[in-house]
Every structure is written in structure tokens, then in C-alpha cells.
């Protein structure tokens, strides 16, 4: 046995005792010199190696030099005949993972050990050598490895086989030559040899379906002894079943009997592997499931947590697809609710919630109530979500489930947990009309004592929408008005807004609401007072302004379709003047294009180190200017009615103005006119000139907006244009271009090129681009440019207009309703083979990108391992045609993806066009 590494400390009670206390890398490396002694002391050397291993294990890093030095001295230890020391040498060599040129030093020693008479030397030398060697050396030792695979000593055989498994990743062509020996080893009497041989043989033949099939049929007749090998065989069998599933629609499934037989194996791991394999069979029948469920049920009452966990986890998965099959286990499952292991308990509960029938709900709720108090929030959220789906499944049980939710809502819990409960109650109120009144009251009670401002305001908002529609709205007023007394300013303001919604909807309540609102006029918070004043005016509380009910309702209940950021910016830019602020001119686009500060036109270009000059933001100034010009105020109408004359536009305005005009059109009238793409980079990062392009798509035109940045401080570019070659875009004809007069260092500017294209047609094409400009040297010290310039060109990358550019990403909130409201006349359905794909998710993404549409209801996410998927897309196609798409994907064994594409739109020609995009894409 190994000796203590340092002098033993007799005081066993001392907590910090460790033989490695105060160990230091430098000192240990010093100690390692003992390896070089002519007279090797095996015990001492073993101790030093252990210390080195300890350091590496603690995460200490050896420098290249240190590692090399240690490695070289370790190789000297092969002279010693001490078995224990040699064993440690093997381990440390693997840990040091020497480089290829260092490996040569030990190769001969290891090869000698590989042919040694001592089994342990042979086994370990094989593992070490295969670990550190590269392909070239492998051919030299291949002969020995083949012998080792069929060595009568199982340890040696296993060592060679396991090394083969690893080597197959790097040098498959060599390992594949060993299949005869591996085949022989599969028949070995030693359990682990059989396991390793089977694993290697399968990996060698995994692409040969027939060979795997043969392997499985011969071995499933019962020559496998090792439980681990049996587990492998079950996995390979499921694979064969899966791949042959298509051609045996009728009759018994091949190999099912083998899997079923494995359920009676003596090793638990084999029983479980087989049960799990059966539950995962494609289209498994309840008859096939029954024996597997039976053994899993037995595991549920095992004394071993691992067994219970494995069983309940598998049953939980089965419950998703075959809830009826799992109901037999419900009693055992219920006892697991109180399991010490909370993972098991949570899995049991969520399974029960999936399999539970209507009559068991009440009993289940009682058990869960006891359980909830002693699990962590993360588990509680899982339970809350399961209860929500249960309630949607059994709406008649809403009373007890709602009560449960309100009870747990009152208990202690973090924000995420409380939010999950509130969300669930809100969903139940929306989907189950009978649950509305009690649900709203539960929420009212909750905000009486709610520490989360966010939840309070959300609930108040929800109350404002749902409360007035109930049979007795007046009972909520008290709860809401209490908030005005007792809460912080944010919640108070929210409560005021909610109150006024009751007043707007129910005339009888108006007088009461007015009284309450007038009290809020004395609130010490501006926002609360402002809201109260505003609402009193809109509702006519002071008799000054009287508006029609519809307007008020639209104002109170309509949603703001303008991004708040944009509104905020516009408000900041608004200066008090004769004209009042008009919300209609606030841009509606969500993305704000990052536009660096642009210098005011006419100003001298600033060079290196010059302080930024000009007004803080010229762009903002221009935006204000544009919106104040009457013609621009009617932009939409103008452009919608008149054909767009880009030659005129480019002639009249400067680049910055054109940029802003395009931006405005895009923001205000995206659907009527066209849309703008996200910027596409036309240069590599870190090049002299950075150029990206935005494609503005119009009914009969396409405008390319090239955003250029000059990254060379010593240069000033003038007269910058992009020469576009549209020879590969036949339907497009250039009508105008707008050069950028000057492009100083680090100050982005735009140049434009406009093309005409057939009206309303989604024309596609490829454009090649060349940046042309006059370059002038800039004196870095003064920032002044020289007078003379040189004409130069810079090749940009190609740019394409694709079908997806004509599709506007517009989501719908409820796809099903939208789908059904579209006439089925214009529906077009077809099926497509997408060929072999890496995964289903990859195929789904490819189609979404191809169509450029907005995925709805989160259907762009493909759950891992799913074999089929449905994805819902919506968008608006050129000509303002709404399009909805339903994609159904399926993947079969060799990863061939098939897709069913159903398109509904307002125009059958567009439905056909979508199919064409997919067919040609």
C-alpha cells in the first residue's frame, strides 16, 4: 500500500489536516529531479508523481517548459522494475498529454511493455500509447493491437477495444481493418470484453444498415452475458426497429419479442433500458406498452432513489403521449409526492396532473397542498404550470383548482413564482368564463397585500378590462380605490386608470368614479394627478369637454401602436410652438438605425482629433424640419397616389434628406409602399471603407441605400458613388443615382441608386457593386484636405434582391382565428421534399428565412428530438396582400425532410407565388 506522503499528523481532530497542506508547484517540480537519480527510489518517485497529479487535479497549470521537463524525467522511470511505480508513470504520462515530438521518447518503452509477459503492463501500455499516439505510429503497432483484442486476458482485450473506440474518431480507416478480431471478441466469455467489442463493432458498422441488422438478429438470440452489453444490444435493436418501421405497417413489430424478453432480465439496468426502449417505439400500441409500464411501476416502489427517478421520469414522458397507459401507476405515483428526493416528487406530481381524471382532481389537490410548502420555487412553478393545463382540460374543476392557485398565491414566494400563478389565473379567467368572477376576486385580494409593483399594475390593468364586463362591477371599485390610498405612485397611477375604465363602461358608476377621481386631484404625485385630471376631462366629469363614447373608449382601451421609445424621442424633440404635437408623425418602426453623428452640410470636414462640431444631432433637426414642411406631412398620400419619381427626388434633395425621406416612408407607410431591409454588409470588417446596404422596396422601384464609412483618418473621399452592374437582374433598370458629395473620416454618409422594376411584381436579381470616389489626402495636424484628388475604385460584395424582400414581417395575435377568417378559396396546398437535412430545426429555419415571414405563436422553435413539427407564419406580400402559411414538417430515418405547405392569402396569385418561392428555393 502507498505510504503517507508526508509525516503523519497524529492529531486526527484537526480539520485542516491534509498531506498536501502547503504544497507548492515550484517545490514539487524541484522534487521531481529525483526521477533523474541513477538509483531510482520507487516509493519516493511514486510519492512525487502523486503530488504532481494532485497539483494537476487541483487545476494547477504547468507551463510548456515545466511539462516537458517533467515528462522527460518521468520517461527515465521506465528503467525501474517496480510495478507500482510503472503504474503511476502510465497515469502521469496520460495527464501530461505530451506533444508529438515528445511522444517518440516513450514509444519504444511503451511498445516493449505492450509485448511484455505481464498482463497489466500490456493493458496499460496499450491504453497510454493509443491515447498519446498519432496515426503514423498506429500502423507500426496495429499488429500488436489486433493480437491484444483477442488476448486471453480480458483486461488486455478490453484495453485494446476501448482504445479502438477512441481511435475510431481520429483514424477510422485503420480501426475498421480490425473487424474480424472485434467480431471474435464479441463472443468472449468475459463480460466487459463483450461489452467493449459490441460497442466497437457497432461503431465500425453503423453506416451499414444491413450489417447492424445482422448483428442484432444474431446476438438477440441470447449469447450476450454482460448487462452493459445487453443494454447496448437493446439500443441497437431500437435503432433497427426505428429504421425498418416504415415497411412493416401491419403485423407484429420485428424484435419486439426480444425487447419484451429483456424486461425479465435479472439486471435492473437491462430491464429499465428495455422498458424505456419500448415506451419510445414509434407509434407504440397500448398492448406493446403494458409490460413495460408494469416493470416501471414496480420500480416506483423501489428503495433506491435512482430507480424511482428513472421510472417516474420515463412514465412522465409516456404520460405526454399515452396518459391512459400510465393511469394504472397513479396510486404508486401518489405516494411519491412525499418522496424525500424533490426531483422525484415533482416528476410524480406533473405526471399525475397529466394522467389524472376529473374525479381524482380534488384528492390530488389536497396532496399537493401539503407538498407545496417544502419545495423550491423552481419546482413550484412547474407544478403551477401543470395545474393550469389541468384546469384547461377539466374546466368543470375550475373551482378547486382556482382555489388552490389563490391559496398558494397568498403564501410566501418569489417574484417568478407569483408571476406564474398570476399568469395562470389570468389565462383561466380568459378561457373559462365561469371562472372569471372568482378569479378576479382572488386577484383583488392578492393586490391588497402584494409586494411586487409590477404584478399590482398588471392586475389593475387586467381588472380594468375584465371588471366592467362582470355582473356586479361595483364590488371591485373598493379594492381598486384602496390601492389609491395605500400604494406607491406607480400603483396609484395604475389604479386611477383602472377606475376610469369602470366609469367609461358603466354609466351608473360614473358619479361614484368622479367623486373618487376628484379626490385623486390632491395626490402628491404628478403622474397620478395628471391622469386624474385628464380622465375627468375626457369623461366629462367637470362638464367642460364632452366627447362621444366611442372616442373615449378607443382612447382608454385602444392599444398604442407606436413604440414607446419613438414617442419619447419625438416628445423630447418637440419644442413648444404654435403647432401642437401630433402623435401621427411619430415613427412606427421598431428598429432605429444607428446613425452616427452627421455633420451639418456645408461645414468643413473635420479631420483627426478635431472636436465634434455642429448641433448635437443634425438628424433630429432634419426630422423636425421635414415634419414641419406641409408636403412632407402628407407623405403617405403623396407617394401612394403619385408614381415615385426618383430622378426628381435625387435631383432636388441632398443625400441626407433622401435618407430621411426614405426613412419616413418606411416608418409611416410600410405596408402601402414597401419596406426596407435590415442592413447587409458589403465589406469585410476592419477594411478601409465600410459599406452596408439597405434595400428599400417599392411597388415599382427598388432603392439601394449604401451606408458608407471612411475609416482612414488621412483621407477625405468626395463624389462617392456606387456603380451597380445589374446584368444579372434583367427586370431592373437603373433610373437614378445620388452621389455623396463628401465622406470625411469616421462620419457615415449615404449614397443612393434607384431601379425601376415591373409594378407589383416580386422581381429578383443579383447586383454587383463598385465603390467609386475621389480620394484626397488630409493633413492630420490641421485636418485640412489637399486640393487635388485622385479617382479610385473599391470592389464591394454582390447584393441580391430575393423574393423574401417583398414580404413584410407582420405577425398576427391569434393565428387560428386569422386562418379561419381567410377564405379557403385562395388556399394552396402542396408537398415538398427538402432532401436530407442536419435536423428538423435547421429545415424549419431555412424555410422561414426563405419566405421572410413572421413566425407566430413561438412555432419557430422546434423541440429537440421531435420527428414532426408545425410552424405558423404570417406576413404581408407586395401589393398589401395578407398571407398566412402553415408548414408541416416531418423527418424520417435518414434525415430526409418532407414539408406540407398550406398558404392562405387574399389573392390566389399570391398563394401561388409563395409556392413558387419554395419550389425554386
Amino acid at each position, binding site marked *: *500500500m*502507498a505510504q*503517507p*506522503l508526508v509525516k503523519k499528523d497524529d492529531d486526527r481532530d484537526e480539520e485542516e*489536516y*491534509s*498531506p*498536501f497542506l502547503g504544497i507548492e508547484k515550484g517545490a514539487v517540480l524541484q522534487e521531481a529531479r529525483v526521477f533523474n537519480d541513477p538509483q531510482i527510489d*520507487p516509493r519516493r518517485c*511514486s510519492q512525487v*508523481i*502523486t503530488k504532481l*497529479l494532485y497539483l494537476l*487535479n*487541483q*487545476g494547477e*497549470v504547468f507551463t510548456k517548459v515545466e511539462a516537458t521537463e517533467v515528462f522527460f524525467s518521468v520517461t527515465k522511470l521506465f528503467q525501474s522494475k*517496480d*510495478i*507500482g511505480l*510503472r*503504474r*503511476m508513470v502510465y*497515469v502521469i504520462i*496520460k495527464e501530461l498529454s505530451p506533444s508529438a515530438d515528445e511522444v517518440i521518447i516513450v514509444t519504444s518503452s511503451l511498445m516493449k511493455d505492450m509485448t511484455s509477459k505481464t498482463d*497489466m503492463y500490456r493493458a496499460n501500455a496499450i*491504453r497510454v500509447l493509443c*491515447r498519446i499516439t498519432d496515426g503514423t505510429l498506429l500502423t507500426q503497432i496495429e499488429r500488436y493491437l489486433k493480437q491484444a483484442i483477442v488476448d486471453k486476458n480480458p483486461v488486455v482485450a478490453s*484495453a485494446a477495444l*476501448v*482504445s479502438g473506440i*477512441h481511435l475510431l474518431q481520429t483514424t477510422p480507416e485503420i480501426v475498421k481493418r480490425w473487424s474480424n478480431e472485434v467480431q471474435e471478441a464479441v463472443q468472449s466469455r468475459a463480460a466487459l470484453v463483450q461489452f467493449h467489442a459490441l*460497442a466497437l463493432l457497432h*461503431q465500425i458498422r*453503423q*453506416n451499414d444498415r444491413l450489417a447492424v441488422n445482422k448483428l442484432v438478429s444474431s446476438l438477440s438470440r441470447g449469447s450476450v452475458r454482460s448487462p452493459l452489453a445487453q*443494454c*447496448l444490444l437493446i*439500443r*441497437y435493436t*431500437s*435503432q433497427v426497429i*426505428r429504421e425498418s418501421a416504415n415497411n412493416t405497417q401491419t403485423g407484429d413489430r420485428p424484435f419486439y419479442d426480444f425487447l419484451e424478453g429483456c424486461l425479465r432480465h435479472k439486471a435492473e*439496468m437491462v430491464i*429499465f*433500458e428495455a422498458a*424505456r426502449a419500448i415506451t*419510445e417505439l414509434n407509434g407504440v400500441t397500448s398492448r406493446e406498452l403494458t409490460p413495460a409500464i408494469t416493470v416501471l411501476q414496480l420500480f416506483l416502489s423501489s*428503495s*433506491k432513489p*435512482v*430507480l424511482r*427517478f*428513472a421510472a417516474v*421520469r420515463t412514465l412522465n414522458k409516456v404520460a405526454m403521449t399515452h396518459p391512459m397507459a400510465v393511469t394504472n401507476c397513479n396510486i404508486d405515483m401518489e405516494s411519491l409526492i412525499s418522496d*424525500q*428526493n424533490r*426531483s422525484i416528487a415533482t416528476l410524480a406530481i406533473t405526471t399525475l396532473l397529466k394522467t389524472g381524471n376529473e374525479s381524482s382532481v380534488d384528492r390530488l389537490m389536497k396532496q399537493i397542498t401539503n407538498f407545496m410548502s417544502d419545495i423550491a420555487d423552481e419546482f413550484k412553478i412547474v407544478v403551477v404550470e401543470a395545474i393550469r393545463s389541468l384546469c384547461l382540460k377539466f374546466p368543470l374543476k375550475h373551482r378547486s383548482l382556482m382555489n388552490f392557485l389563490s391559496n398558494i398565491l397568498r403564501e410566501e414566494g418569489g417574484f417568478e413564482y407569483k408571476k406564474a400563478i398570476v399568469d395562470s389565473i389570468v389565462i383561466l379567467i380568459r378561457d373559462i368564463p365561469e371562472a372569471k368572477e372568482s378569479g378576479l376576486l382572488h386577484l383583488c385580494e392578492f393586490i391588497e397585500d402584494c409586494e411586487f409593483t409590477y404584478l399590482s399594475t398588471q392586475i389593475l390593468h387586467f381588472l380594468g378590462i375584465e371588471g366592467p364586463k362582470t355582473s356586479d362591477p361595483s364590488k371591485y371599485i373598493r379594492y381598486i380605490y384602496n390601492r389609491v390610498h395605500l400604494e406607491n405612485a406607480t400603483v396609484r397611477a395604475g389604479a386611477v386608470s383602472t377606475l376610469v375604465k369602470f366609469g367609461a363602461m358603466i354609466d351608473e358608476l360614473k358619479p361614484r368614479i368622479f367623486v373618487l377621481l376628484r379626490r385623486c386631484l390632491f395626490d402628491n404625485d404628478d403622474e397620478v394627478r395628471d391622469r386624474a385630471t385628464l380622465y375627468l376631462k375626457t369623461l366629462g366629469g367637470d362638464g367642460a369637454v364632452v366627447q362621444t363614447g366611442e372616442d373615449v373608449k378607443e382612447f382608454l382601451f385602444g392599444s398604442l401602436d407606436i413604440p414607446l421609445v419613438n414617442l419619447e424621442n419625438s416628445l423630447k424633440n418637440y419644442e413648444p410652438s404654435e403647432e401642437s404635437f401630433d402623435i401621427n408623425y411619430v415613427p412606427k418602426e421598431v428598429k432605429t438605425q444607428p446613425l452616427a453623428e452627421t455633420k451639418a452640410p456645408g461645414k468643413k470636414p473635420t479631420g483627426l482629433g478635431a472636436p465634434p462640431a455642429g448641433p448635437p444631432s443634425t438628424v433630429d433637426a432634419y426630422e423636425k424640419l421635414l415634419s414641419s414642411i406641409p408636403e412632407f406631412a402628407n407623405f403617405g398620400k403623396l407617394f401612394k397616389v403619385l408614381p415615385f419619381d426618383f430622378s426628381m427626388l435625387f435631383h432636388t434633395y441632398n443625400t441626407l434628406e433622401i435618407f430621411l425621406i426614405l426613412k419616413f416612408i418606411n416608418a409611416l407607410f410600410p405596408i402601402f409602399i414597401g419596406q426596407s431591409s435590415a442592413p447587409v454588409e458589403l465589406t469585410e470588417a476592419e477594411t478601409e471603407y465600410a459599406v452596408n446596404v439597405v434595400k428599400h422596396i417599392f411597388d415599382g422601384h427598388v432603392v439601394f441605400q449604401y451606408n458608407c464609412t471612411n475609416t482612414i483618418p488621412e483621407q477625405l473621399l468626395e463624389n462617392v458613388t456606387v456603380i451597380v452592374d445589374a446584368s444579372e437582374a434583367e427586370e431592373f433598370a437603373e433610373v437614378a443615382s445620388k452621389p455623396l458629395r463628401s465622406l470625411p473620416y469616421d462620419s457615415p454618409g449615404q449614397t443612393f441608386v434607384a431601379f425601376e422594376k415591373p409594378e407589383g411584381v416580386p422581381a429578383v436579381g443579383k447586383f454587383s457593386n463598385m465603390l467609386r470616389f475621389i480620394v484626397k489626402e488630409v493633413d492630420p495636424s490641421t485636418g485640412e484636405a489637399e486640393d487635388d484628388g485622385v479617382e479610385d475604385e473599391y470592389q464591394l460584395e454582390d447584393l441580391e434582391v430575393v423574393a423574401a424582400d417583398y414580404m413584410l414581417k407582420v405577425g398576427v395575435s391569434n393565428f387560428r382565428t386569422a386562418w379561419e377568417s381567410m377564405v379557403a378559396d385562395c388556399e394552396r396546398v402542396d408537398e415538398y421534399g427538402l432532401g436530407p437535412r442536419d*435536423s428538423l430545426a435547421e429545415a424549419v429555419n431555412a424555410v422561414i428565412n426563405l419566405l421572410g415571414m413572421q413566425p407566430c405563436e413561438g412555432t419557430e422553435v422546434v423541440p429537440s*428530438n421531435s420527428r414532426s413539427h408545425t410552424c405558423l407564419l404570417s406576413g404581408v406580400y407586395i401589393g398589401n396582400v395578407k398571407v398566412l402559411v402553415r408548414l408541416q414538417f416531418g423527418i424520417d430515418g435518414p434525415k430526409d425532410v418532407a414539408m406540407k405547405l398550406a398558404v392562405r392569402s387574399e389573392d390566389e396569385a399570391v398563394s401561388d407565388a409563395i409556392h413558387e418561392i419554395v419550389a425554386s428555393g
Partner: protein
Amino acid sequence: MSGIFSSRDSCPEVKNILILDSEGKRVAVKYYSDEWPTNSARLAFEKSLFAKTLKSNARTEAEITMFDSNIVIYKSVQDLHFFITGGDDENELILANVLQGLFDATALLLRNTIDKREALENLDIIFLCIDELVDQGTILETDANILAGKVAIQNMDVSAPLSEQTISQALATAREHLTKSLLK
């Protein structure tokens, strides 16, 4: 077949083996997966895993939990905590079997006094034991007796005459005989 079914069609794999002390500090660890490429990633994993499993009692039977989409099975004795990590899809019982193998072999080799002090004093044995248990993630041997035998053989100086052997060496010799009979 690679791709979505890979884990189910392939050989069981161990992602790491950890032996930590009562404060979650390393006694011996071995990572086979590149899921934790740096030492700090590994330390972070050990720390949060230890915190998560600290409260449960895994002294009589091995316990199990899901952790970062991995299955972790663990067992504790005295001031030592043994962990084994495998993929989400792994057969839990196979992993438990590997952990039990390591645990029992350690008990045999440390003469049933498994604690941190003993483990550190015989760290070479622990390292050898892990080395014989799993090779680059592939299960090499899980039978505790065979494992202990393989490790014990190598820690005995065969050339020393019987009279000069210490008691522990004599024990090791005895163990070797036991192992040889088991290996046959």
C-alpha cells in the same frame, strides 16, 4: 448514426467523476467531456452542484438529480461526496452502477475507513481506481472487486520477500490472490 438519436444509439458515456470534501473542495476529479473546458468552468460546476445536493441525504442509497441538463448521481460517506455525471438521455442505472463500482472499490482499498484524510493519504490509489474505472468517458470496469484487484496488484512490491512485507503489503498480497481467483 449521428444527429438527433446519437445519444440513444451509442455507448454509455460518463462526463465526469468527482470526489469532493465536506466543503465542496476537490479531493479528486476527472473530466471526460469538453462541456467544461476551463478549470473555472469546472470549479463553478462543482460549486453549484455541491450547493444543490448538500441538503439531501445520500448516505444509505445513492441519490440522483437533474443538473444543467445532465443527470448527476451521488453518494456520500463521512466527509466525502462521490458524484458521477452523464448526459440527459443516459440510462440512470448504468451511471449508478459505475458510481457504485468506484465507491465499493474505494471502500475495499481503504479498508472501509473512507474519509477525506484516508483518501488524501492514499490519493495514488484513488487516481488509479478512477483510471481503471473509466477511460476517456467509456466505462472500463465497474466490478468493485476486479477494480480493487487491478489497483492493488500494482501497489505491491512483488520482489520483496514475505518476511519483509509490512502488514498492509501482506493484505495486498492476500487481496491479489482473491482477485486472481475472481479473474479466472
